[in-house]
């Protein structure tokens, strides 16, 4: 099997599981909606200065849902000790990491395809024109977040207190990514094009590349039997 075929097979396996059970998507999506409700309670029903707050709120919701999603990546493999099976299979372990990261990224994206428009509707943000550019930022942020998150989920999945451990490690490491995402979104909300936020976009691309490569190389050490 070529590397690409391995990647496709492994990713499809996780996607098929998720499509059958819809467990992660449904729980995370509902959690995301609850976060939006909490925003309303915290800020009051009639929000002023929303244009200023919206970029921050979107990415706070992103961090919450993202942390919840990546933490689960290796739980599914635990019930029947299937991770050992995967590790024994003749596939490159780096590819296994990439497929897990891809699965996480797709899940986070799927949730946000629902969440972001819902946010716009619930908070009366009349900025539908920014959606395509915001989508680009979202994809870049999701890749980076899934890249670090998946590696950390692998590091912590056998440890005690793993639920707290992932956010504890992930949030400080993801600072450049979150800053990049928030600043780019702010630029978009000010009515400028994404080109105005070029250096933040480049920073996010650099982050994604660094952690995809780092995760690919480090995963072998993390899951060693």
């Amino acid at each position, binding site marked *: 099997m070529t590397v690409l075929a391995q990647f496709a097979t492994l990713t499809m396996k996780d996607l098929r599981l998720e499509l059958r059970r819809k467990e992660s998507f449904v729980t995370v999506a509902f959690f995301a909606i609850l976060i939006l409700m909490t925003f309303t309670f915290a800020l009051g029903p009639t929000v002023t200065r929303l244009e200023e707050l919206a970029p921050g709120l979107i990415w706070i919701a992103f961090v919450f849902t993202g942390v919840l999603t990546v933490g689960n990546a290796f739980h599914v493999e635990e019930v029947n000790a299937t991770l050992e099976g995967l590790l024994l299979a003749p596939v490159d372990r780096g590819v296994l990491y990439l497929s897990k990261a891809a699965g996480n990224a797709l899940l986070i994206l799927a949730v946000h395809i629902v969440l972001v428009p819902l946010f716009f509707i619930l908070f009366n943000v009349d900025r539908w024109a920014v959606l395509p550019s915001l989508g680009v930022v979202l994809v870049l942020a999701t890749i980076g977040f899934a890249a670090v998150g998946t590696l950390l989920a692998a590091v912590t999945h056998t440890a005690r*207190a793993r639920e707290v*451990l992932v956010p*504890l490690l992930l949030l400080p*490491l993801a*600072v450049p990514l979150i800053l990049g995402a928030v600043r780019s979104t702010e630029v978009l909300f000010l009515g400028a094009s994404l080109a105005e936020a070029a250096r933040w976009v480049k920073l996010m691309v650099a*982050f994604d590349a660094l952690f995809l490569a780092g995760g690919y190389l480090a995963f072998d*050490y*993390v899951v060693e039997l």
Partner: protein
Amino acid sequence: MMSLDRPIFGFRRSMVTRLFGLLTTGGLAAGLVTGLLIVPPDAIQGEVQRIMYLHVPMAWNAYLSFAVVCACSVVYLIRRDLAWDRRAAASAEIGVMFTALTIAAGSIWGRPTWGTWWTWDARLTTTAILLFIYIGYLVVRQVVEEPEKRARLAAVIGIIGFLDVPLIRLSVQWWRTLHQQPTVFRVGGMMIDRFMLFTLLLNLIAFGCLYLYLMLKRTELEMVREILVAEQVRRIAHDE
């Protein structure tokens, strides 16, 4: 069985430790007396500027510690010798301590100088994030029991954490410069007085010795602990 008194560059370990202990004591005494009592205070900032003689060496030690964590982690993953894991762990603990002390001393200096304990300045923010990354590193070491596995996982965190530092620094810097220019910061490019520079260097060397001394002591402590655990295991096995 590991030896507690393995030679370091041909010298007995206990001798090297003692040497650095003496150097640290003498250096810190000389550095603190010079810095806090003898050297004249800063013309503009006054007495509070003397904190610099502690603050700067502690900050350097903090960054040095984390670079050592990264280097030892790489060596561990290549050689799989737990001695390198002990060094990485010791350095991380020392680094977290010095980072916390750097922030504390900086706050005490910042209150009278900038008029605030804390500000989201690029350097302060980066240091705070570093503190959290390496607290995370130490927490991972706490929750994984098996020594080899703990060493492996910690090494991965130690390496990616350090690789992230340039990106964090850059992003935080852009974030602040985009938002607002620092208002109460010191004048850039100010010439430092010769005597002040000497005092600072003296303290840097003393704190460097302190770092090495703490490293030697902390790794020694860990070796003693491991020997005791091995002995305990041996006894339990013997009783049964």
